Structure formats: C-alpha cells, structure tokens
C-alpha cells in the first residue's frame, strides 16, 4: 500500500498542476456571493467553443443579409454570458444573444 502511495501522490500533484483552477465570482438569486473554482482548461475550451459557435451562425446570417437602408453594418459584438451555480460540476457556459450592431452609412 505504501509503495502505491508515493506514485499516487506524484500523479495527483502533476494532475493538479496541469488543471489549474480559476475562481468564478458571482451572486445567487438572493444576492449572496457565490464562488466556484473551475478548471482553467475547461474555462478556455468552453468559452471559446460557445463563442465560436455563436459567431459562426450569426456572422453567416448577417453576411447574407441585404441591408437596403443605405447603411452597412461593419461592427458586431457578441456577448457571452457565463452562468455558474453552486455545486460540484456546476460550471456552465451559455452564449446569450447580447448583440450590438454598428452601422456605417454607405457612401454613394
């Protein structure tokens, strides 16, 4: 048993080093603070994945849209809303439609 303990400890240490945590700080519905620590790896992949998905769909739709008002959209903002709830494995990312479109007048 003792022989297994040291390798187990080393593996655990290496694993924890590879999966550093980042704190997520928010408030619950009662206004009380909630702190969740999530894996930095999970944070990076989840945030980027959901943002890429939203960007792909919306940019394609916007690129194909014909604006006939003499104005052309040239700036587009996507807001990513990060939801966390108390509890293990509660890390959840969702991209809400927090869009902001900026138009520039088309020069004739």
């Amino acid at each position, binding site marked *: 048993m003792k022989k297994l303990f040291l390798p187990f400890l080393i593996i655990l240490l290496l694993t924890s080093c590879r999966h*550093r945590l*980042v*704190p*997520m*700080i*928010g*408030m619950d*519905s009662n*206004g*009380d*603070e*909630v*702190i*969740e*620590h999530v894996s*930095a790896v999970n*944070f*990076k*992949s989840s*945030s*980027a*994945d959901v*943002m*890429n998905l939203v*960007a*792909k769909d919306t*940019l*394609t739709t916007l*690129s194909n849209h014909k604006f006939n008002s003499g104005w*052309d*959209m*040239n*700036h*587009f*903002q*996507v*807001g*990513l*809303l*990060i*939801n*966390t709830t108390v509890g293990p494995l509660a890390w959840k990312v969702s991209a*809400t439609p*927090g869009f*902001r479109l*900026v138009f*520039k007048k088309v020069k004739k």
Partner: protein
Amino acid sequence: MKSIILIISLITSATLFASSTLPTDWYQPSFDKGANQNTLSTPSAQADEEIDHLFSTQHKTLKRLNKNANKKWKVTDYVFMLALSKSGLLGFKALNGKSVFQVYYQKKKATPVKVEESKPIDIFVHEDMTDSDLQAQIEPVLGALVATKKIDRNTTLSGDIVERINSVKQVVGNLEASTDKKFYLSAFRIDLGINSSGILLPSWAAHKGTEVVLRLQWTRIVKKGAPKALAYKSKVNSNFQAFTESVLKDLNKIDESPLASTGKKAVKVRIGMGVTTTDAIIISSAKTTFMGNLIFKRNKKYKPSKSVVTNDYQYVIDKSIDGAKKMGQISNERFIKGLNKAVKMGGYFVRKADNSKKWKVSMLRAWYILSVQGFMGLAPITATSEIELFYK
C-alpha cells in the same frame, strides 16, 4: 487594432481561498482615522501570480477563438470583467443576467469604429430644451419601451418624466464648463426606473426591481458667458455648483506618477452622487431627492499652474454604505489621498493586463468606493460604485 477593455469590478463575500487574496487595504474600509491613505500594500507573490494566471487564461481563451469564422469578419476587440470577493479574491465575473465576456467582430474591409459602452443612452437633455422639446424626445422612447411589453403605458408617465427632468434642471442647469483645470465637467447623468405598471420610481430605486431603466444625460453644460435667461437659480444649485467646483480642484491634485511607467493616464472620472431634501451633497447610494453621476473628462489643453489652490470644502458621505444611517463627512484632503491611492491600484492592474504580446489594453475601468472615514477602496458590486476612474 486589437485591444482589450478590461473592467474590474468588485463583489463582496467570504472566500475559501484566503491565501491568494489582495492585501486588505485594497478593499476593506478602514475606520482608523489615522490610517495613511498614501500607502498601499504590495500584493503577495502568490496573489500576484494568481492574477497573472487570470490574464493568461483569458488570453489563451482568445487564441482558441476561430478568427476565420467567416471570411468577411475579423475579431478586433474583446472585453472581460474581473470581480473581487469580500476577502480579496480576484476572479472572473460570473453574474447571471449580464454579459461578462464580449467579443467584437468587424468587417475586414470596413472602417474601424470606436467600441463604446454597451448600455445606450436613451435621452439627451439640453439645458435650454422646452417641455414640448422634451416630450417630443420622450414619446418615441416610451413607445419603444411599451413595445417590448415590459411596461404598460401609464397616462401620466410622460408628464412625470418631464417633471423629473425639470426638477433636476433646477440643480444642474447652472453648471459652468471649467476649461482651466486638469479635468472638466463633461456631462451629468441620471437613471430613472419604470415598473411594469408604467410608474416612475424614485431615483434611488432605478436599478432595484424595475422593469426598464431610462437613462437621461445632460450633454452640454452651460458655457461661461451664456445668456442668463438660460440659468436656473435655486438654493440647491449653489451647493451643487460649489461641490462640483471643489471636486474639479481636487481632481487637479491627482498624482499620476504611479501610471508613468505604463504610458496610461486617467482620462475620465465618474462620481456617483446625490442631493438630499436638505440640500446636502452626498456621495452614496442612499435615498435622496435624486441621484446622478458627474462625469469629468481630461482637459487635453491643461497646463499645470504654479499657484497652490486651497480647498476646505467637505463632502458629506452617507454612512448607510457601512450599515449605519447617520450622515458623516470627510475632508477633501482625505478625498484626494483616496484618489491617489486609487490611481496606484489602477497602475497595478494596467501593468498586469499589459503583459500580452498580441493584445494591447485600450482602456481599464476600475470602480472605487469612498467610506465615511475617507477610505478609498475597490468597490463591491453589491453597492453602487461611487467613483469610477477610466485609465487609457
């Protein structure tokens, strides 16, 4: 140009990870009158490293963004927010209902446009607007709000808003634009809350339990030499004018040397304040006749004067931010020291955020609170931020 707009906000609470927190003098109010506002503790090596890790994580997230999601578009800017717990733990802000991570895309061949705050200003008010001018501007906004089905149309709502605007004009209508100081007063802003029945709520309740918030901004302050017919005289106004002048003088005394190595400057200062029925000017979030935000911008033409300006005006602070209800006051000396301390904190975060080779910080906004003892610290998100410094 790729850039970051970093927003630091602060949330109060207990935390389990006290080992990597910021020093207490960065966020906990000090009730010791002898406390030195000029000093600022250095974060521990561990806290320092944790903050580096947060920025690094965010930069690595950006690397994963598919910049060629569409051939016609490119990523130009991103905005993210940090939050601070009651015990000084810094982390990513994760607040339900608010966008905490924003990415801006721009057409590859398009002319760059300035990235602005996401919250729009609904109504611009000029000091010489008549009631019918205001009505003409309010009607389409109210129509749009009713169309969202968040509020019902109340027959008195439009008139109530005009009445509220006129009451505020009594106070701010006479402000003069000062151009001989480091900062000048550029705008005055108030938010009005409207509930689902179309009832206008008191200013202090604008963000609490309301369905929609209507933002009013006075975009032009009366210039010196303007016709006196436009001036509004009242007792409250004299206090307000004195307060504004006093703050302008204090802003002259901001020591920006801690920012020198960063190449950044404080470009804008927003001070949340209120006016009570007893004419007191307060910097707080308590019940007041109205609450508003004074917005000061940096005067690019300003040249420091050799003359020393003395200033003995006292700011009245509502103790409710610390749990009590009595009024207190702090001297301008402590106010200035607090501002200088805030600049030191801002310099620290600018240096941290500027470590990326690919992204450049375009603006950093930090919120601060001012306690009854004159302590200036990073502001909790659960309270209204009283002072906000924009670094660029």
